[in-house]
């Protein structure tokens, strides 16, 4: 099942690809065409190749209806200027066709079990599996879309606020088309909040300045500590001298 799904996916990619891709995979497409319609492709006939591509494109729209006769083509109502066939089949066309005359179901070899409900409601009724699948696909598409939006908004280098403040609003809008704001202040604030792709180069000088400031501060602090220590030392020494002097005086007193 998963292998068949992968093959269907690749055939759809080929059909929607370039002419070169189609021509280089013509045998694969012809094989798939034969399996689905019973018709052999005449590769030398350009009109036949176009018909094959149109047929396969319609097939991969995942229509649930298929006529018994491969080459069958029917008008829905008298006077119609168009017909419905396996190569142009869609669920909507099939439902309209059956709405006109439900007995036409006998013309189909493939149809959903709930076709009678579909022709009454005219709405597509999802099975729980289909719903889960659709939700998963929608989530995947949204995530992809969000990632692409984010990529479009990401800056290569961090802008410098001072430089931005020197610019006119019109120039700012040209430089940052993804940002919308009516005032320069608001615009710059939003620009400064944009994500940046590469490391912030502008921050390096700031970091160095900070370091210097920090170092200066630390030096100052150390100096201060030295000074304090020295002051304390002097005080200790002073105290020691005072005590020594006192001790000497007492000693002298004793002698006397």
């Amino acid at each position, binding site marked *: 099942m998963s292998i068949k799904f992968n093959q269907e996916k690749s055939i759809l990619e080929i059909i929607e690809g370039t002419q070169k891709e189609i021509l280089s995979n013509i045998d694969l497409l012809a094989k798939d065409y034969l399996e689905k319609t019973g018709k052999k492709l005449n590769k030398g006939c350009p009109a036949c190749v176009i018909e094959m591509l149109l047929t396969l494109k319609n097939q991969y729209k995942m229509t649930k209806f298929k006529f018994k006769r491969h*080459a*069958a*083509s*029917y*008008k829905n109502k008298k*006077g*119609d*200027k*168009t*017909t419905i*066939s396996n190569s142009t089949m869609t669920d909507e066309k099939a439902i309209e066709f059956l709405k006109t*005359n439900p007995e*036409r179901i006998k*013309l189909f070899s493939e149809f959903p079990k709930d076709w009678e409900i579909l022709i009454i409601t005219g709405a597509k009724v999802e099975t729980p599996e289909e719903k889960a699948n659709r939700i998963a696909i929608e989530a995947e598409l949204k995530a992809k879309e969000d990632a692409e939006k984010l990529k479009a908004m990401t800056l290569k280098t961090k802008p410098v606020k001072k430089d931005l403040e020197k610019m006119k609003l019109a120039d700012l809008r040209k430089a940052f088309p993804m940002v919308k704001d009516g005032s320069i202040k608001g615009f710059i604030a939003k620009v400064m909040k944009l994500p940046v792709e590469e490391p912030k180069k502008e921050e390096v000088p700031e970091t160095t300045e900070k370091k210097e400031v920090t170092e200066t501060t630390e030096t100052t602090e150390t100096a201060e500590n030295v000074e304090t220590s020295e002051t304390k030392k002097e005080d200790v020494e002073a105290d020691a001298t005072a005590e020594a002097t006192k001790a000497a005086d007492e000693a002298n007193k004793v002698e006397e």
Partner: protein
Amino acid sequence: MSSNCAPKLTADVLYDCADKPKKGLDGGKAIIINWDDVDRSGSTVTAAIISDLVTKSGTSGFAAEWFKDLASANSAFAPNTEDVDGFLHNFLCRIPVSSAENAERARELSQGRFIVVVETKYKGALDAEAFKVFGWESGVKLSEMTYNTLENSASMLYTVATEEGDTESYPYNVFLETDYATSKATFDSAFATV
């Protein structure tokens, strides 16, 4: 001899440079309808024009396809001293491959009576003359079929024609349902009534 039924010429036959003749059949297919499947009471015919060709409910014609220009239709006036004068219709085509299914088709062709509708390359002004009908009044039956493994790519060549003793009033009938697009859609649907 009475001339009560003998019509007179009533209009000019002109050559218009803006409406030149063109030979050949278009689209690579004809629709063959079983004689018994035609709803004559439901169809509308005015002189040579069939404005509504209806098949019986649940029936349709069948496509007979060919490649290149290997199919043709013709008619010939056949004066008759004993029977009514009229035109004989012929449609020549081939069954492309000698498969079991096509052997069945060949057998059915040999036993039935049909009406044949083709699209000609000549479509006339406003594409109103694109579709020609052969055998509308008397039907056509298989008059010839050959199969040779060494000739014609081993395809089965056949001709369906007005049967001896039968005639058609016109060299062909024209099928025109409102306009070309509507007629084309009916033709493509093989005149199915579903």
